[in-house]
């Protein structure tokens, strides 16, 4: 099989101004409750950003807006300078280059680890390609590379449902990687992980920054301290503080609503 049809037209993401994601004046309300309230957030191309905030601060809703799951009542969400995320469907957004890891690890439990990556792989995803094309050698190579990166090489043929919690999280990150995204959204990657697994995850995520922009939502403070350059604190649907971990920790507002409690 030739690989002509398996190539995808790469959408050009204009990051000429250094930013890859622009969220401006985003408001989302559910039955009168404002989950996001006039949120402004900018993510630089290639940066690793941590987002923290107490429960109900709007972290997950923000991810929902970026990935097209939730439509904002007000405001704009731009990916690069031209792609308006509020007008796109989930799979279009995924194709444009935004990958998302859910809070609860979601992998395809009845498929093997290899098949999970195969399904996520960046390629033409219409029906006919799926029906008639097989993986090219190049694509198999990409999958194997990723298996090495996430440390699951020897589990390639294991059914994903049999993996441990930590391994499942890494598999999901691997599934994002083979999508070759420009922006990775990662929701609570180390929840429920052992100390050692947490360290390995920190290493993995740090190694991804630069090549990709990474946004991590996390509660675990030690973990954030170990990876973050820049931290954004959300509170009641808007940005409360932004800066280095040290700045944020010393910010009196933040101490009051979050760290102090």
């Amino acid at each position, binding site marked *: 099989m030739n690989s002509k049809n398996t190539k995808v037209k790469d959408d050009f993401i204009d990051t000429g101004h250094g930013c890859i994601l622009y969220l401006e004046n985003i408001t989302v309300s559910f039955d009168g409750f404002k989950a996001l309230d006039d949120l402004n957030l900018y993510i630089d191309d290639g940066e690793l950003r941590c987002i923290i905030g107490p429960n109900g601060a709007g972290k997950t809703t923000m991810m929902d807006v970026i990935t097209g799951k939730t439509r904002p009542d007000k405001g704009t969400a731009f990916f690069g300078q031209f792609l308006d995320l509020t007008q796109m469907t989930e799979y279009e957004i995924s194709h444009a280059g935004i990958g998302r890891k859910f809070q609860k690890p979601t992998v395809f439990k009845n498929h093997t680890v290899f098949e999970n990556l195969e*399904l996520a792989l960046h390629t033409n995803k219409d029906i006919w390609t799926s029906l008639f094309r097989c993986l090219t050698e190049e694509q198999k190579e990409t999958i194997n590379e990723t298996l090495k990166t996430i440390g699951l090489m020897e589990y390639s043929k294991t059914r994903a449902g049999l993996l441990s919690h930590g391994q499942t999280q890494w598999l999901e990150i691997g599934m994002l990687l083979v999508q070759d995204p420009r922006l990775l959204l990662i929701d609570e990657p180390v929840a429920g992980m052992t100390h050692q697994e947490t360290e390995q995850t920190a290493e993995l995520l740090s190694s991804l920054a630069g090549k990709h922009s990474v946004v991590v939502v996390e509660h675990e403070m030690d973990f954030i301290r170990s990876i973050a350059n820049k931290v954004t604190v959300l509170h009641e649907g808007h940005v409360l503080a932004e800066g280095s971990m040290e700045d944020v920790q010393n910010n009196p507002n933040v101490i009051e609503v979050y760290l102090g409690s």
Partner: protein
Amino acid sequence: MIKELISLHSLRGWLYSFGLLALAVILLPVLNIFISEESFLHVPNYVFPLLGKYLCYALVALAIDLIWGYTGILSLGHGVFFSMGGYAMGMYLMRSIGKEGMYKSELPDFMVFLDWKELPWYWYGSDYFSFSLLVILLLPGLFAFVFGYYAFRSRIKGVYFAIITQAMTYALMLLFFRNDTGFGGNNGLTDFKRILGYSLQEPSTKMSLFIITAIVLFLSYILSRYIVKSKLGRVLTAIRDVESRVMFSGYNTLHYKLFIWTLSAFLCGIAGALYVPQVGIINPSEMQPSNSIEMAIWVAVGGRGTLGGAILGAGLINIAKSWFTVAAPDYWLYFLGILFISVTLFLPKGLIGIFDHFSSHKKNRKL
């Protein structure tokens, strides 16, 4: 392409599949024609339409398994697609009766009975087999496509989708029950004489219909096998397990669901069309909601998500049904209910799960 086809099965799998096909299309006819009637090996004539009927049901089960077992979309309205194929074939068979009906008229008997003077426009094409074949191949799929497009686009899932399909089959049943609709009302279409010039009473015609059904089932099985073994099949099972993840992985799940839903209806329509000449009647009771539910039970009992299981389930349940309707008709529904409940409780993988259990047992012992 050939290589991919061969790799669909292990050698043993291919031997089984072709063995079963050969059994149906070669051995049974041979035992019918060349063995004298006194011998216990003789296969009597009545077996063919009966087995043919089971094979049609097996094709229905295969179709439902694709959409339910593999994609996780439960349809309780496949009776509609089955009936569409059946009615299209029935209309052709009605028109082939010619003037040999009870009233010796150009028109089908029921139209004479209703005092209709001419054929309604939607009966025009059914004089021709080629046109009827086209309707059989296109109409169920087209109907399913439109229905599915609106249902899946609105992201209707799970029980809600199942309920809507029940409503669909019920509504169409009521429509077909009306005499004015022009499909024979509650009597449906029956008293067929011939198909393509061959008398339907002839054993050879019945045997040929059976052989055609067996071949169609075999080809549909290979097609389904190809689909579920391809990446498309893995996307379908992924949709069944976590659809949102599939969407975030960049797949337009609407297209995938619509594809398999339409294909399922297409296969079901063919099953209906093969069913009618072998059974000799099609009427609106095929669209009863309970009929469509029973179809889903075949798949559940046989084993969801395995093609062999669906075929096995349809076969075994219908053989049991034939036996019960003669021996103890009142107890059939109790039996079906108990069977369904016990399979759900004790054999979550269906009857085919027993075979898998034993074969994996054997493998383990070897290790």
